[in-house]
């Protein structure tokens, strides 16, 4: 009996310790439930984080484009509304807009881009490519191109280009080689390849040719202009809301990654919903488990509760003693559960590996997850103990002692 512990704590721990088998079984039960929640949460966080990283490693969170041109009748007799033929247009006043965007706290990075179709020619080889004029310092804050360089470096001075390693292979070119670019507007430039990148995504890898913004502007007949502004956000999940707001404020077309990857995003969301449903029901069964054990314990301890009451213990003290038992069971169970989840995850990670033996993706039981589940399980334990605790407190001592 430690001098600083209140009566309720002493009684609760003694009761739990005395009912050894019961306490152990319910703590293990809670532990298994919590381990399922922690394991699933960690797995899902890891999986989704991995998928998101892959998806967002090669695209901006929001892309601002010039407003879609209002379609007008091309010929009076046709009477059919038709989209105008695609022609590169610049964003009006983009420097102004850029400055305003950079000042918004929810926007982490702003990168103007001049991009358009072109042909890459080297010897006999001739490939259709996407020409992207960027400011590397800003662009890399959205797409970590600098980390994806596999040969050479990300250097985009005038007359220099960085291309995907796939394209380099197809063209038979390497770092230091020359590459001729022909744009749709008829301009031509010969560039030196300074680096090769690998974004790990074939669709993106193949056709991209990065050049300095100015080089692209000249080639694409877009002098002084940009065709889009890429944005990186602080909170990726607010992309759609921010995109709508930007459209309203600037009149530009704003495409969020959520809209461009609608299916993927829906899959993420429904995964979250279903895991919450699982969490809820596991939590519920944990609560019922704790409640049922405590109900039995109240019946078994009726006499002792009666004596405690006869000795001057108040209803409130009895109530709190049993609430505390629920809380302690929840807390111990959740710590056991976190440990179990950690074991499962370690096992899982040794089993789930890529063909080359590297782990599929990193998952860790993070401290916040352990803390949140501990707090959650303690709360669930206390709530679950409420009905048994009320019954214990309401026991008639006369009946309890005689019984």
């Amino acid at each position, binding site marked *: 009996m430690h001098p600083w512990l209140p009566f309720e704590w002493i009684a609760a721990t003694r009761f739990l310790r005395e009912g050894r088998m019961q306490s152990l079984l319910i703590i293990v039960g809670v532990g298994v439930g919590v381990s399922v929640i922690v394991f699933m949460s960690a797995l899902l966080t890891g999986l989704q984080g991995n998928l998101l990283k892959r998806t967002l490693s090669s695209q901006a969170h929001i892309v601002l484009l010039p407003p879609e041109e209002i379609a007008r009748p091309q010929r009076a007799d046709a009477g059919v509304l038709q989209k105008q033929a695609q022609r590169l247009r610049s964003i009006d006043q983009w420097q102004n807009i850029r400055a305003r965007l950079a000042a918004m706290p929810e926007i982490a990075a702003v990168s103007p881009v001049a991009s358009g179709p072109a042909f890459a020619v080297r010897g006999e080889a001739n490939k259709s490519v996407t020409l992207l004029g960027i400011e590397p310092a800003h662009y890399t804050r959205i797409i970590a191109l600098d980390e994806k360089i596999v040969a050479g470096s990300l250097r985009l001075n005038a007359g220099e280009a960085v291309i995907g390693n796939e394209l380099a292979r197809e063209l038979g070119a390497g770092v230091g080689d020359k590459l001729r670019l022909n744009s749709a507007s008829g301009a031509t430039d010969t560039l030196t390849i300074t680096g090769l990148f690998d974004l790990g995504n074939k669709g993106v890898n193949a056709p991209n040719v990065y050049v300095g913004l100015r080089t692209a502007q000249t080639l694409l007949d877009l002098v002084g202009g940009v065709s889009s502004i890429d944005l990186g956000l602080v909170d990726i999940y607010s992309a759609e809301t921010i995109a709508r707001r930007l459209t309203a404020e600037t009149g530009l077309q704003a495409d969020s990654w959520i809209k461009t990857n609608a299916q993927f995003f829906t899959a993420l969301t429904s995964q979250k919903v279903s895991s919450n449903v699982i969490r809820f029901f596991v939590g519920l069964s944990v609560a019922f488990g704790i409640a049922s054990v405590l109900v039995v314990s109240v019946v078994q301890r009726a006499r002792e509760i009666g004596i405690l009451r*006869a000795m001057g213990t108040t209803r409130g003290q009895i109530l709190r003693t049993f609430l505390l038992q629920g809380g302690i069971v929840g807390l111990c169970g959740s710590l056991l559960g976190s440990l179990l989840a950690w074991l499962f995850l370690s096992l899982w990670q040794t089993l789930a590996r890529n063909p080359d033996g590297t782990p599929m993706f990193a998952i860790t039981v993070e401290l916040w997850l352990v803390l949140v589940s501990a707090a959650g399980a303690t709360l669930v334990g206390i709530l679950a103990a409420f009905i048994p605790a009320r019954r214990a407190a309401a026991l008639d001592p006369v009946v309890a*002692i005689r019984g």
Partner: protein
Amino acid sequence: MAEPAAVLELAGIHKSYGRGSSLEVEVLHGIELSLLRGEFAALIGPSGSGKSTLLNLIGLLDRPSSGHLAIDGAATAGLDDRALTRLRGRRIGFVFQHHLLIPAFTALENVMLPMLAARGRPDGEMRQRASDLLSQVGLGERQHHPASQLSGGQQQRVAIARALVMRPSLVLADEPTGNLDTQSADGVFALMRTINEQQGTSFLVVTHDPRLAGRCDRQIELVDGRIVADTQRTG
């Protein structure tokens, strides 16, 4: 301030069970009784006469259906459960027939229990007092034994120490020796008697043992819920 001479006053106490139902029975029919400070009284009577019922009312574990009940001069009629619990914890000690210790606690902790309940958390003084009382009842050596490992007579001694720990005005004992052999029963009874004489604590002891009843200052006899005799021992 002089303490009132009567630790207990009952006037017109009635107790019915199953009130409002067709099974309503009145168990106590107008009990008039008062107990003085330092008195050692036996409550006797046939089985089912209402002795335990009366003791539960006096111990504030239950409420009378009607009548006046005062402990140490304080009327209890208007008190809520919390106040009754407080009063019970401070003024009344219980000794039951079946020892009724808390098995998960040691002997010492069982004795500390009423103080612990009253003060909320343990302290050194509490421990000291409980330890002294255990020595007084002859169990100084067994303080740290779990209650469940003590013999019947030892458990009853612990229960007596527990009843005394708050220095109550009145100890209520419901057949405290009912489960003990003659020798242990004599020991337990003698212990209560000694405490009564040394500390002036009043005792009301229910017993079926005429031999023990005869050694009390006063015998109150209950038959069918009425006090039929109340005699002082003379000499």
